[in-house]
């Protein structure tokens, strides 16, 4: 396995230690619960914003803890939801009189852990609400299945609720905003290579030299279908088709456009994708009001990218523009 790794079992713990050592003033690390939290959290005058999810998606979510973003993140192992205990203990540590918002990407494991953790926290008298993010248009037929996944678009929910909480909004208001942003956010992803979970030590699947996986999530699982590789512009056309067809986004809309790298794709390529997406949207009368190019939610070392659109209105625009700070730059 070609990775910088010691014992794969310590992958997450060692990464978190690194994050803590690099940010000694702003962050606090609680090893027992894989917990990275703001040094100044919880604050009595602010709803605490918490997110779990598996590891392997960095910077999501442990490196997005900071002013105007998350108050804490408690990741599980690579691609595995955190144990219920982590959620419960995190909720206790972050308990604010204004309440705790638990952000959950829509996966079975994460939902179970957060549902149970929330119940236990509530039994302790902590006020908590769950907000489920599900922006992935690759998952269809959602009545039969577990519904859409939460993928890179969760960044916009985090950013908006983080800003609202920082401005003093109460729990109901923060929840309203989070749902509103989730409702106008859509993502579609494509992988050029499989990723290698450190504990597995080999790629999750094999792709031929000219094959790509279209409609992938962020856990290295194969996508909706396998296709032949195409020119970058043609891939963008396919992603845009899937995304714009879904909400839909219309001529006259103003949007935030995110090109998210899945981990192994250099930023030069992301800007090549961005270029065509921006122009194609302009051709449809859709204005890109805010641009996000870089890594927001990854699948370890997977080469690939996802495209996210958020339909902006004045309220969302204002929240996305609010100041924010984290271990890595995300805005």
């Amino acid at each position: 396995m070609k990775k910088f790794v010691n014992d794969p079992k310590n992958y997450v713990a060692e990464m978190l230690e690194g994050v803590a050592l690099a940010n000694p003033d702003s962050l606090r690390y609680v090893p027992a619960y894989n917990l990275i939290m703001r040094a100044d959290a919880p604050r009595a005058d602010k709803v605490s914003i918490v997110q779990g999810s598996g590891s392997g998606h960095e910077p999501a979510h442990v490196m997005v803890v900071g002013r105007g973003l998350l108050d804490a993140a408690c990741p599980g192992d690579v691609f595995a939801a955190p144990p219920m205990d982590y959620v419960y203990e995190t909720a206790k540590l972050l308990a604010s009189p204004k309440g705790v918002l638990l952000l959950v990407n829509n996966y079975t494991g994460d939902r179970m852990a957060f549902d149970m953790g929330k119940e236990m926290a509530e039994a302790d008298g902590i006020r908590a609400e769950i907000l489920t993010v599900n922006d992935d248009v690759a998952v269809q037929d959602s009545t039969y299945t577990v519904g859409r996944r939460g993928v890179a678009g969760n960044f916009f929910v985090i950013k908006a609720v983080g800003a609202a909480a920082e401005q003093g909004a109460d729990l109901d208001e923060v929840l309203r905003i989070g749902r509103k942003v989730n409702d106008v956010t859509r993502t579609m992803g494509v992988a050029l290579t499989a990723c290698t979970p450190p504990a597995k030590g080999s790629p999750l699947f094999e792709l031929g030299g000219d094959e790509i996986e279209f409609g992938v999530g962020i856990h290295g699982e194969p996508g909706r279908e396998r296709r032949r590789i195409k020119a970058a512009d043609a891939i963008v056309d396919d992603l845009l088709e899937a995304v714009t067809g879904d909400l839909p986004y219309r001529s006259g809309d103003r949007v935030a456009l995110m090109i998210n790298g899945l981990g192994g794709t250099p930023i030069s390529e992301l800007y090549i994708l961005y270029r065509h997406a921006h122009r194609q949207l302009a051709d449809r009368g859709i204005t890109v009001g805010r641009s996000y190019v870089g890594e927001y939610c990854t699948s370890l070392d997977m080469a690939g990218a996802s495209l996210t659109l958020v339909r902006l209105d004045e309220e969302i625009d204002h929240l996305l523009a609010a100041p924010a700070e984290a271990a890595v730059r995300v805005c």
Partner: protein
Amino acid sequence: MSGNALAGAELVVRTIAETAVENEKYFGDLDAVVGDGDFGYSLARGFEKLLEGWDSLDRSDAGTFLKRSGMVLASRVGGTSGPLWGTAFLRAGAAAGSTEDLTGEQVVAMLRAAAEGIKARGQSDVGDKTLLDALVPLTDRLEQEFARGAGAMEALPAAAGAARDAAEATAGMVARRGRASYTGERSRGSVDAGAVAVAVIAERISESWQKRGGTA
């Protein structure tokens, strides 16, 4: 099935734990085909945790022992498997209660309770291509065997065989739960990792039972 209920529960849980740890790579590779490959890792780490605290688990009775085991899995193990397997153990323990000896019917009732727990927790059912598709056929067969008067020494291998057949048959199904479900039609053609794990575990329990030399 006769003999001391607690000793039986201990043997079964220990066998499950050891099977999970030993098959980490195999189960993980099965999950990698259309899933995200973490099943073996999650299960192995989870049961390792259980084994770490093995000696200090409350052994008041078989039911309590199973419930404590379930608590460790449900609360301290991540992924989808922690809560699902934990719930299964909790429910099985509750069904066992404080009985000292377990009848065949009680064992079947415990397995039914475990399956119902998984269904509730996972919002899933037979036919969704999950471990339920091995666990439920296994339970059905066990019930039949006991009903026709078979003892554990005979019923267990038969049930393990049913689980194995059912696990193999998941290859023909389309996943509707778990990470594999996101690939839709593409999940057809490969077996479900959880179902195979149930079959492997059933086989191991059956063997252990023979070795232990249960009184039939």
